[in-house]
């Protein structure tokens, strides 16, 4: 039974109090080249000043509309995209200092949205699942892969030698989960991992993710645009807008009070199941501004109903609410010293 030993998560270096992941001031600007000489003409500010931390064993949900930098953040975390600036500290070790990229990738795995595109069409399911374990030099990768397949609900005898196109979407996403878990990671980044599945399969996969989290002591970063799904699986929610973090709060807290005007519009856009409880909030107008030239000051001020002069010039800082220090928000309405006419009063009802 040597295989069960390789399931064990790698050593816990910082103790339970040490956050598993700390991200500080992460930044990624993609150059847009053009013109005759192919020089950089502008920069898409995909991720800017993003800081957050993830505690051990918790699930952090990241929400936001398309193009707000959720997926770029995920790829930065695992080093698939090179960051311009910022620190990634995994269990007390900073990436690039005491932690190599290969070690980080052992500890952090990712499940992508498109279950078909993330599987090599020429490899059997077994080979795909075993690949990571093989690369990391784990003992008996094939046996490990079979166990993992069994654990995610795919009979290895039936599926091991199939090819990705012979599987359904839900089965393929289970393969992707098995592949990520075969490396025995401690943090799994789920980038829209259930978004492409239909509702019944989505529920099965979400339950599976919950079970696996408990069984292997995993920590999740769960990226989605579906607030209900995020609420179901997350402990805390991080809201992004145009590459920046606008609000971070525990699920119950944010469900009770959305402190940022953007979060409020996002929540009000959620369809209600109760016909008597229809949305009263006016919906957001227009598309998000171009991330090549994001608005100065608060990036949301162009679409915010409460925008004042201060919002156009000063960048709001992420800070705890006065009554609830766990609930962080970046909005001048909550900052008494911001210079906003209604500063310190919170978002008007």
């Amino acid at each position, binding site marked *: 039974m040597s295989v069960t030993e390789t399931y064990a998560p790698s050593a816990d270096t910082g103790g339970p109090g040490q956050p598993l992941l700390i991200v500080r001031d992460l930044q990624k600007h993609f150059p847009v080249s053009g013109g005759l000489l192919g020089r950089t003409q502008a920069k898409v500010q995909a991720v800017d000043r993003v800081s957050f931390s993830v505690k051990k064993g918790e699930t952090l949900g990241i929400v936001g509309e398309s193009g707000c930098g959720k997926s770029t953040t995920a*790829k930065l975390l*695992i080093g*698939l995209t090179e960051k311009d600036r910022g620190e990634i500290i995994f269990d007390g070790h900073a990436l690039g200092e005491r932690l190599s*990229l*290969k*070690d980080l*990738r*052992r500890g952090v*795995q*990712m499940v*992508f949205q*498109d279950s078909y*595109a*993330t*599987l*090599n*069409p*020429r*490899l*059997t399911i077994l080979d795909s699942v075993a*690949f*990571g374990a093989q*690369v*990391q030099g784990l003992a008996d990768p094939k046996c490990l892969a079979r166990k993992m397949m069994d654990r995610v609900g795919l*009979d290895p*005898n*039936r599926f091991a*030698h*199939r090819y990705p*196109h012979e599987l359904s979407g839900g089965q393929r996403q289970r393969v*992707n989960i098995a*592949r990520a878990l075969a*490396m025995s990671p401690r943090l799994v980044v789920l980038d829209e991992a259930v978004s492409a599945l239909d509702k019944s399969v989505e529920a099965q996969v979400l339950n599976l993710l919950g079970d696996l989290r408990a069984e292997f002591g995993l920590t999740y970063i769960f990226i989605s645009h579906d607030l209900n799904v995020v609420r179901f699986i997350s402990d805390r929610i991080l809201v992004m807008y145009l590459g920046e973090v606008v609000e971070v709060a525990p699920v119950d807290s944010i469900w009770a009070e959305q402190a940022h005007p953007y979060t409020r519009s996002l929540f009000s856009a959620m369809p209600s199941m109760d016909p008597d409880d229809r949305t009263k909030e006016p919906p957001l107008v227009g598309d998000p501004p171009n991330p090549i030239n994001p608005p100065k000051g608060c990036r949301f001020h162009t679409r915010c109903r409460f925008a004042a002069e201060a919002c156009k010039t000063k960048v709001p800082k992420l800070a705890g609410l006065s009554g609830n220090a766990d609930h962080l928000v970046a909005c001048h309405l909550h900052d008494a010293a911001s210079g906003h006419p209604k500063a310190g009063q919170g978002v008007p009802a």
Partner: protein
Amino acid sequence: MALTDTTGGQAVEPAPIEKPQGYWSGVGARLVRDPLTMICAGVVLALILAAVFAPLLGLADPYKGSMIARLKPLGTEGHILGTDEQGRDMLARLIYGGRLTLFIGLMPVVLAFFIGSALGITAGYVGGLTNTIIMRTVDVFFAFPSVLLAIAISGALGAGIVNSLVSLTIVFIPPITRVAEAVTSGVRALDYIDAARATGANAWTVIRVHVIGNVLSPIFVYATSLTSVCMILAAGLSFLGIGVRPPEPEWGLMLNTLRSAIYVNPWLSALPGVMIFITSLCLNLLSDGLRSAMNVRD
């Protein structure tokens, strides 16, 4: 042992072990169902086998001429396909000629396939400056028409089999590199390459396991389509006198030497051309058949 029962009559086992069906056996099955491709494969195979085993076929000596039996027509007693301008047996010369012709017709493409794939996959996977250096260098060769380039290089190196091999290989590296680069940069952008990189695998492992299998078949199919061009170019070099030298039998060279006999015995002079035509046509059709057989995703 119920599990080894492959008759599959009754579904008693809840989880029968499924027989893995490999990619190549699928390609083979599709090829067998394609009669035209099979015929072409048969012709090419027959030509290659005849060339390889020519000494065992009991043919006349392809080098032995006769001043009295020159330019005999087809169907002459003892010379079924007649004799050439020096009285040498045409059948023997055509079959022995296949050795050199097929060798310098196929070998450059094989060499260019390996070199071009390596260059193109590297350029496509690594990208950036490496890509620019490799692809712009390759582009320089595109400035010259392939025939001109082959003649120029062969002419500079001098006549001879090895030199025409080298020049033809150089001619075919750029187009294969182009195709390899294009296919690889397409695959490079796919999510499964990201997923593979996310395991911590180094570039070579990702290329070996995830890139090569997905790019090689389009490159291979493209390369097979070049073999017919290469055969014609090789024959052309010999025709011009900068490839194979007499008295070696080679189809292009034979076409040249028999050219003057075209008014005396037109059928005879056309024979090497017919051989070149049949071979390149079959190679072309074979490459088409291979392309459709290798297409898994319908």
